[in-house]
């Protein structure tokens, strides 16, 4: 039986979600230091599935919770509060909403239930070696041959592609058109002959993303989403209010807590020089929360987010980065060690914070691109 979650008052809903996480989410996976692999988080995904909570953002008719924006924000806030790790969720976050909006009936019937059940794990094939910030210049091409698209090219920075069963990708289907107008949106099974995945080891030593190669890969024509050459518009429309969560203060709040733990253990709160810097950062985190709160209110009122939300991502990730820097600094020689920092008050992990701060200012549109967006679309500075 499905519950009308939106009918609950916010506080009841929050406590219901919180209690479920506390009772069912595995203790040892709280606040993971890196992205969890599918085999690590699969059980939790299936627990959510059995509870009917795996797709909080999808409409009820498709098996989601059908949460309205303010309830969805509460759900995500509680996930962050409890340190619930992110499962490979591209199917839930991207493919589901995409198909519900642009998919054919056959695509919805086939893919949506398998995403919910964790049978299909999706990865996102957008970036290419020569198409990062300038994504529209992508060159992986698909030519139509009878009932199939034949795909050739290469994707890169594909998060957890080694765990994925399927990939959604942007491909060039018209080389003559203006670059945004010759791109289509395709779905492909990772088991199709000609697809090869090579994991890439990150600076932090984990294999979080991959290269994906396509060599004469035959993708059935019915795997096209939307119209031919309309892929760019579809991909852009997917950037909904998920952008809000790139600017969540949770990451910085957690880093501040670590900084505090380390400083207590090292006796640094007796040092006014340190205290001044610490308080400045603590206020940055407080003020970030105030800024975040303003955008959350906007979403709650049902208003769409404008390009100004970019500033939230910039300030959130750069605050996080400054916190990581100070943590490394106070650790001294141990700041270069992968081992946790031993202090009088226990161990504090230093380097994973520093490592996690690096991609934060790059992914989801680098902070430089975000500044370009703000300069042009909000400040209206000339091009």
């Amino acid at each position, binding site marked *: 039986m499905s519950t009308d979650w939106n009918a609950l008052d916010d506080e009841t809903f929050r406590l219901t979600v919180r209690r479920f996480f506390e009772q069912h989410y595995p203790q040892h996976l709280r606040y993971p230091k890196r992205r969890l692999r599918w085999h690590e988080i699969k059980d939790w995904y299936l627990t959510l599935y059995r509870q009917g909570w795996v797709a909080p953002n999808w409409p009820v008719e498709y098996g989601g919770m059908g949460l309205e924006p303010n309830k969805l924000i509460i759900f995500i806030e509680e996930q962050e509060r409890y340190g619930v790790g992110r499962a490979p969720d591209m199917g839930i976050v991207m493919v589901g909403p995409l198909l519900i909006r642009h998919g054919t009936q056959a695509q919805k019937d086939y893919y949506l239930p398998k995403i919910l059940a964790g049978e299909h794990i999706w990865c996102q094939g957008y970036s290419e070696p020569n198409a990062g910030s300038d994504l529209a210049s992508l060159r992986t091409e698909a030519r139509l041959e009878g009932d199939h698209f034949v795909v050739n090219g290469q994707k890169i920075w594909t998060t957890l592609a080694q765990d994925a069963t399927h990939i959604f990708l942007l491909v060039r289907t018209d080389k003559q058109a203006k670059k945004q107008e010759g791109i289509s949106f395709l779905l492909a099974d990772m088991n199709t002959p000609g697809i090869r995945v090579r994991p890439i080891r990150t600076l932090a030593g984990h294999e979080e993303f991959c290269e994906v190669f396509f060599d004469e890969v035959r993708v059935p024509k019915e795997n096209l989403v939307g119209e031919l050459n309309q892929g760019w518009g579809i991909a852009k429309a997917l950037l909904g209010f998920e952008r809000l969560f790139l600017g969540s203060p949770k990451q910085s709040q957690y880093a501040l807590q670590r900084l505090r733990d380390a400083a207590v253990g090292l006796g640094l709160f007796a040092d006014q020089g340190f205290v001044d810097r*610490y*308080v400045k950062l603590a206020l940055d985190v407080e*003020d970030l929360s105030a800024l975040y*709160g303003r955008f959350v209110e906007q979403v709650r009122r049902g208003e769409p987010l404008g390009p100004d939300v970019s*500033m939230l991502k910039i300030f959130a990730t750069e605050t996080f980065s400054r916190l990581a820097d100070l943590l490394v600094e106070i650790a001294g020689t141990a700041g270069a060690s992968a081992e946790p920092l031993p202090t009088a008050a226990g161990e504090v992990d230093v380097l994973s914070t520093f490592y996690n701060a690096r991609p934060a200012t790059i992914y989801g549109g680098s902070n430089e691109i975000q500044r370009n967006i703000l*300069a042009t679309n909000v400040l209206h*500075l000339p091009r």
Partner: protein
Amino acid sequence: MTLEYLCTRRQFDRPIGSFQALQHRAVDLWIQRSLTEAVVAEALKALAEGVPPSVRSRLAARAKARASDAALHVAREAVQMHGAIGFTDEYDLSLYVQRALVLSAWLGNAAQQRRRYATLDNELVPTGER
């Protein structure tokens, strides 16, 4: 005022506001302004709801710290982006720069407000460690 100047002042046959080095700095100023707005709005809302005096003092210290820092940051950068005209008494920007200096220092500058905030918030700096 500075945004307008960036759009109208031309050098090298283009408005100087089209240069990315200046655009990104302008964005950073605008972010500080927006942060100040958010913090002040949050403080005003709390005051209107009637919070205890200790919380009021904390909110005031926090808002003043952000506003003071942001004002001085914007003022300094505004002078720089205007170039030589920004350093003249005649140009209106001088009024704003002087005003920012005075208001930032008045009733405790940002550094003083942050120290005050730390003494008002028992949670922030662990006790027994100071």
